[in-house]
């Protein structure tokens, strides 16, 4: 069972993680991967210049491990990769990568969906964006709360 849960404080290239992850799970039926990137957003909305993601060490990584435990309990998985950036990022940079390997596609896709919904609005991260030189804290969207509620 391949399990790779990490916080990264610098730029990463998802392909360099996903290739070895897939190789590490021989006999899998399918791998589902989601990669989130820092959005630019339209200039008329005051385009995003930078994004800062703060975490709290004693809670954030243990929380991601608990989330991984729940994913392994809930879905029939062979492997799970969950990598999240922290610190300062620029638009276009990858911020999160979740990859799940399973014998059947339903488990792989649903596990990625489940982990992403929880990382997005139930993990210990605080996010702020810089627009037109000003920092703004970001709140989860209503959609994020609705997405999360699907699993309860």
């Amino acid at each position, binding site marked *: 069972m391949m399990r790779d849960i990490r916080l990264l404080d610098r730029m990463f290239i998802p392909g360099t993680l996903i290739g070895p992850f897939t190789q590490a799970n021989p006999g899998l039926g399918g791998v589902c991967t989601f990669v*989130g990137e820092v959005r630019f957003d339209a200039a008329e909305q005051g385009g995003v210049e930078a994004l800062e*993601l*703060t975490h*709290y060490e*004693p*809670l954030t990584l*243990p929380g991601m491990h608990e989330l991984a435990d729940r994913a392994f309990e809930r879905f029939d998985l062979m492997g799970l990769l969950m990598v*999240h*950036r922290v610190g300062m990022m620029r638009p276009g940079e990858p*911020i*999160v990568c979740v990859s799940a390997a399973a014998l059947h596609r339903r488990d792989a896709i649903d596990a990625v969906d489940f982990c992403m919904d929880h*990382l*997005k*609005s*139930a*993990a*210990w*991260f*605080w*996010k*702020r964006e810089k627009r037109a030189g000003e920092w703004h*804290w*970001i*709140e*989860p969207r209503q959609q*994020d709360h609705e997405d999360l509620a699907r699993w309860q």
Partner: protein
Amino acid sequence: MITVVFLGKLADLAGAPTLRLSAPLDWAGLKAALPEALGEAVDDPRNRVAVNGALLADKAALQAGAGDEIALLPPVSGG
């Protein structure tokens, strides 16, 4: 001494990411030691409190001694 860590918006309100306060501290003592606006903000039920990485079910039950780290955690906003 006790270290108080402010996350997210609370760090903006505090003007710094951390603060050092004298031990021991209970919830009333902590609020009294913070600037008024911050003391009111941490009372907001959406803001959680952890001691040494363990979340408190009831903030009012806070008891921190020398060397402890109190974290004041506003609602999260993820990736």
